[in-house]
């Protein structure tokens, strides 16, 4: 997933609006409320294992998963570390 360019950006959409308090629970992803009761969790994940960890926690909450999109970041200057919580 993430290699020389740093961690990827994910957008996970779920059914049901979530309170902002869930931000820290989901490792710093931002919580954005969209129309039709959809919530978009957006942010960086370190790697696939972290993504699956997140999906597992969503599963454990019973919140219906709508979509998962992974957006690679634009290529960065060489020598830049892309570590991100």
């Amino acid at each position, binding site marked *: 997933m993430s290699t020389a360019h740093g961690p990827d950006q994910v957008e996970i959409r779920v059914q049901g609006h979530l309170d902002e308090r869930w931000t820290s629970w989901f490792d710093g992803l931002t919580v954005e409320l969209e129309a039709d009761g959809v*919530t978009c969790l957006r942010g960086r994940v370190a790697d696939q294992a972290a993504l699956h960890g997140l999906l597992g926690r969503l599963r454990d909450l019973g919140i219906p998963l709508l979509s998962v999109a992974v957006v690679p970041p634009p290529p960065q200057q060489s020598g830049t570390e892309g570590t991100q919580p």
Partner: protein
Amino acid sequence: MADALLETKLLRPRTRRDTVPRTRLVGLLARAAQALVTVVSAPAGFGKTTLVETWLRTVDGPVAWVSLDGGDRRLTSFLPYVLTAIDRAVPGAASSARVLWGSGQAPVDSVLTGVVNELSVYDGDLTLVLDDYHLADGPDVAGAMAFLADHLPPQLHLVLSTRSDPALPLARLRARGELVEIRAADLRFDADEVSTYLNDLHDLALPADAVAALGSRTEGWVAALQLAVLSLRDRPDAARFIDRFTGDDRFVVDYLVEEVLRRQPEDVRRFLLDTSVLERLTAPLCAALTDDPGGARAMLDRLERDNLFVVPLDEHRRWFRYHHLFAEVLRAHLHQERPDDVADLHQRASRWFAQEGPVEEAVRHALAAGDPTTAADLAERAIPDLRRERREDVIRRWVDELPAEVVRERPVLAVGLIGGLVASNDLVRVEERLKAVEELLTRPPSDLIVAQPEELASVPARVEMYRAALALTAGDPAAAIHHAHRSRGLAPAGDDLSVAAASGLAGLASWATGDLVRAHESYVVCAAGLERAGYVADVLGCSLTIADLELALGRLGDADRTLRRALDLARRQGRDGEVLRGTADMLVALSRTAWHRDDLTAAAELLREADDLGESAGLPQQPYRWRVAMARLRAAEGDWSAAIELLDDAERVYVGDLSPPVHPVHATRARVLAASGDVGGARAWAREHGLGVGDDLTYLREYEHVTLARVLLAEHRAGGRQGVLAEVVALLDRLLEAAQAGGRGCSVIEIEALRALGHHAVGADERALDALEHAVDLAEPDGWVRYLLDPDLGDLLEALARRRPNRGLVARLVQRRAHGIRPSGVRSAAPDALPDPLSERELDVLRLLGSDLGGPAIARELFVSLNTVRTHTKHIYTKLGVNNRRAAISRAHQLGLLTRGR
């Protein structure tokens, strides 16, 4: 404490009080009762566990229940729980399997096959429930479960309750009609059920439209409905609440939990949030987190009464957990409202578990508190005890969970973790880790972090010891011996365990190369060290090896003494009549020395005693060893068919240990064939194994080559080809030379006796007498007559008696022959000695119980129904006083039941 945890995992949950009868699902469940596999797959909070538990109360037959957790993704954790649960539900069904798995030598498939075969003749139906299966569903476990699903006996019904569809070949099961699925769509409450739940069960007296609105908003999700009830209880403005609720887009659970929390008094709210970090709650633990020693018990009772999602985990209601969904949301609240408290709460939990155990929980909480340093210290201190208790699975898990940075500076911890890897055969990067530890030790002591200073001095010795283990596994015994010796040299005074471990490895390596004298020395050191270190069970295993070596070296009396001393130790060690595992093996080994002295009565008595002790007294190799010993006994009595039967059975139950296989059963079998006159069969064996008189001789194949000599002599006796004798004698000469060079006294006696026969057969009687005399000289001190009992030696013995009058042993043997004393009737009981003898049909079934055939296959063999087989099996078990197939066969051999009417 560890036992308490085990109990909570195996306990069937108690049914909730507020359940709606799922009459709609009765049809589905009835099909589940017939199906082989039932999968209940739905997200958290859909009532899966409740449904399964309620359904089980109507099911006939025993139920084995396992509540899985994250640690069960590894087979080393998963399998023991499942096997224990099965064995508790159907005693005997998994006892052999558990021992087999514990041996570490048997692959998963053969362990599971054993259970399948036991259950396939069980006269009943067993339901195995795996709750929260998604937590264990990794590649290891999935592989084992797929095997099980492919071989399910009709008596076993698998029920998996899970949040994700399991990685099993569901499509195949579905196609064969062997799968029942209950999914979220089935579990959602319909309008009637919602109404029953809200109004009938909880007396909310809501009007129809309100009920409909709630049903639609929650989509029949029972966890949400439970939360709704908690929000609506005693609320005057129910209608307004429902309006707001249904008009809101918030995630249902999030909304309702917040609502429920808002309605709680502050002390309850605080308690809920504080304790949300725990997986399992008990009053004293909660008190440690909330700083309220007096109130915790009362609070837990109150929560349970108020139905606030607290689930009891044991029968005494000392341990609880929160319903998963509720706990998730509580934790999110805690993280948001009081983020700084989270680490502190985990720290308190860690400290409590560090005090009360189990240490795994203490480590887990320390890591969750973001305190890997404390976690590392706890782990380091706990490892010696975990090793002693054979809990290497916990150590193995820590390898993954402890961050590399903390391990990097802790040599004692690092070497302890390496032990966990080696114990689970995970050898790939062990050498790297060993080098890292050595590098660490070159740094100044002030750079090192050590929680157990007394262990630090042992680290260099342990490093070398693990290198020896690696070398052994890689098939390099010379390197293994080298490292083992270095390890012994590096071990500090008083570190008995390191010395013992290194010596054991050196012993094994020496044995593999045929250096029995050094092997023996090493094992003696090993046993002494183990005894001083208090590892009694391992002393037993070690003593068995020492006795084996002493026997091979021609020291029968020493072997006897070694075994008796170990047996004494075992008997002294057992508390409250508990029999130490390995005791039965001692008895079998003693029966072998008795056999060597031709004291068949004593041998039979020892084997009976070993069998009576039952499965728990035997090491994994015990069933095999017992059968071989019993076979030898029967052969000595001239009961050839019983001997063959036993050896075939021995091969079926064989499980190796680390020692070199120097007495393969197939060779023993050939000896029996030769002795019984089945020369053709014996010859076939030699061909099959590629054995010839001109072979290069190695220690590892000595037994086979001596067997070949016996076979050829028997062939000659039966009127076989001429000219073979010269070759046999040549082979025996070479074997003698090799045996003498290796100091293998036992083989020398046997080979000399055979040489005597060989020379006699070609008419070289002087040489024959010399050989026999040599054998007698060696055998006399310990009364080792076994190899001198061949009837064809009769003339020679008399000649020897004339040559050397007053030779005690010879005179005795001659006398024995003259009086026609033959071993006879040493069976401890005649076949009819059973108070309730087995019928012919039952005997037919019994014979097949000794095979690998499952119940349905046995039924086909006998042209009866499976039910008939099951009934017969049940009666057989009762009559023989056993509860599993293997024990039934042992008992049958004991009573000589298997060879009548063949």
